[in-house]
């Protein structure tokens, strides 16, 4: 029941009695149809009429899992029955049913509720179980549907999860995910779901985290940070990247890592100054860089002259007083590390 406005309720209450009665009749009808569908479930009835009824109800509320269960049983029963007569025909039927079920499910998600757990888990079931792990499915078409739905809501985590199923079947590698994430970030810097995807792809490619790669990543995200210094999405990515600056003996690029660390201190300092010394995220970035320095580059003076854990945390407390207790904790931690 997310997002219903009180003023809409007031409007509905002011409606004429005929409209109200029509709505009440619609609800009563829906309740009675649901009751019928459940009776069919109890009787293990998966006839065409029952399948249609469940499909119609699911297009109104795709979260009623029992109705998807009716359809799952009905679809598998049809393929089983066909297989007893003719294997080739059964395979053709399977492909057909997959197509139809994907279409019905798309309709249920788009018209009913595009954030329905049960609706999305049924879609994954169509691909993985009914479609025999994607072999009976047009995976490219499904990937395109994800693009469309993510264009409408770029944070829909159900869609990202479904897309991950497809990517596995399509044997996408981390590079495909990197490209996909880059496209999303270019469209909108403030999409943490895309930055998250990028982190996961890079974590799967540790060889992509050489100093030169990190420099490139910092370049990408700093572009976002200078555009929107208050947006936490890019800063979360920046925070993760800073963590990647720790020395990696196998890569033999510590000198470059130290340089990048200091470049980032300069960048965060500049961003903070641009915001009058009150940029919460740039200050947090400096704290993170300082912490990394203390942990891994103890000989390095990370912070600019005149700056200390105390001064950074004091500035943070002043521009973000709601998190004062955390900043107190952070200051104590940084001071004890020194």
């Amino acid at each position: 029941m997310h997002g219903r406005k009180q003023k809409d309720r007031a409007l509905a209450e002011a409606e004429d009695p005929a409209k109200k009665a029509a709505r009440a009749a619609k609800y009563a009808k829906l309740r009675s149809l649901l009751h019928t569908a459940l009776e069919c479930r109890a009787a293990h009835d998966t006839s065409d009429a029952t399948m249609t009824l469940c499909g119609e109800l699911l297009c109104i509320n795709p979260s009623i899992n029992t109705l998807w269960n009716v359809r799952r049983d009905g679809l598998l029963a049809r393929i089983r029955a066909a297989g007893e007569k003719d294997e080739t025909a059964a395979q053709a039927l399977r492909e057909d049913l997959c197509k139809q079920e994907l279409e019905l499910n798309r309709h249920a998600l788009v018209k009913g509720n595009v954030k329905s757990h049960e609706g999305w888990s049924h879609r994954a079931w169509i691909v993985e179980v009914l479609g025999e792990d994607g072999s009976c499915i047009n995976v490219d078409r499904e990937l395109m549907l994800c693009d469309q739905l993510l264009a409408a809501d770029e944070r829909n985590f159900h869609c990202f999860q479904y897309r991950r199923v497809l990517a596995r079947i399509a044997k996408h590698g981390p590079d495909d995910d990197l490209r996909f994430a880059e496209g999303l970030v270019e469209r909108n810097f403030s999409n943490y779901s895309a930055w998250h995807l990028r982190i996961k792809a890079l974590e799967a490619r540790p060889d992509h985290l050489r100093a030169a790669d990190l420099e490139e990543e910092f370049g990408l995200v700093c572009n976002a940070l200078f555009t929107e210094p208050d947006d936490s999405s890019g800063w979360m990515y920046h925070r993760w990247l800073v963590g990647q600056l720790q020395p990696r003996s196998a890569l033999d690029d510590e000198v470059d890592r130290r340089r990048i660390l200091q470049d980032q201190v300069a960048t965060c300092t500049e961003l903070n100054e641009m915001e009058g010394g009150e940029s919460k995220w740039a200050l947090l970035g400096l704290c993170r860089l300082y912490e990394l320095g203390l942990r891994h580059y103890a000989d390095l003076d990370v912070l600019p002259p005149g700056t200390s854990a105390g001064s950074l945390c004091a500035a943070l407390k002043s521009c973000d007083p709601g998190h004062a207790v955390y900043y107190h904790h952070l200051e104590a931690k940084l001071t004890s590390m020194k």
Partner: protein
Amino acid sequence: MAEAAEQALRARVGVLEAESAARGAEIDRLERELRKRDGDVDGFMREKHVAYVLDFWRKEKETKDTLEMLSIEHIRVQGVFWAFGSLQILSAQDKVNTEEIVAWALKCQDKTSAGFAGNVGHDTNVINTQFAVYVLAQCGALDKIDADAVAAYVAARQQPDGSFADEWSGEKDTRYTCCALFCLQILGRLEVVDLAGAVRYVLSCRNAADGGFGQVPHAESHAAFTYTALGALKVAGHELPADEADELAWWLAERQCDSGGLNGRPEKQADVCYSFWALTCLKMLGRIDWIDRDRLCKFILECQDEDAGGIADRPGNVSDLFHTFFGLCGLELLHSIATPAQISPVLALPMSVLPPHASLC
């Protein structure tokens, strides 16, 4: 030598943490005492909320259908949990007939598998089984079910990777794991499952980048799934290492928006339900003061539906049972309302209804 010094340091940290936890518990107790003396925070519409929640049963009796009633028909057991739980927080649970609730809840049980459905005639799953067990616990009727049989149903849902799944769709995620373990915790039957496997699965949903947990491995961190993950870990007796707990607590504290409310993910709007999920995670981590409690309290109060009673997802919206319950839980955790029903931050049930073996923090 270095090793001995490190051990001494760790021991010292352990002692200090125990002291700080004891102090936290004492502050908790004193704040509750003070709140009982002072009464509810100004602006809290207690009577309206009681009337709104009681309407749930009245509308059913009068078969007055609403969109809300229809949309939760298939998960009525969750609706009853939210409604009855709200009344327990509001000290008005004696206004409903628990015998009727218990009789109905028992009808949701599948006699073969011993699992529960969300309503009579629907299919079972672990999630609704947990909520049915919760409703029976709320009503003091856990003796009406065969705990071994229900525990066996839950155990049969565990997968080789340690997760728990829906028996029809095969869907598995941190919610199923959390519901399975919470259910077993109430039933006192945790030993029937592979707890180490469950913990392994939950930890595979953790994101090292922000310390939060996603619904499934590789998924983006989300405050609601973080609650299911952290709750499951608590029940399984697994504590996060101190640095991971700190990172997670910071990420959770960052969920507080300019409005004072908490959101579920970066750059999303605040929503009252996270006033329980994110807040209670901070509580479990002993870091509830990492957010501005007064501003969160103000946000929840602003989400009250002045006309109908109840609490909505955000200001100006229509209330529903789900947000009413989680809003009230949030106010209880903040010690903003006077209530004898202390809510378990892990299990979201009043401490008073938990069997002795099930009480957690």
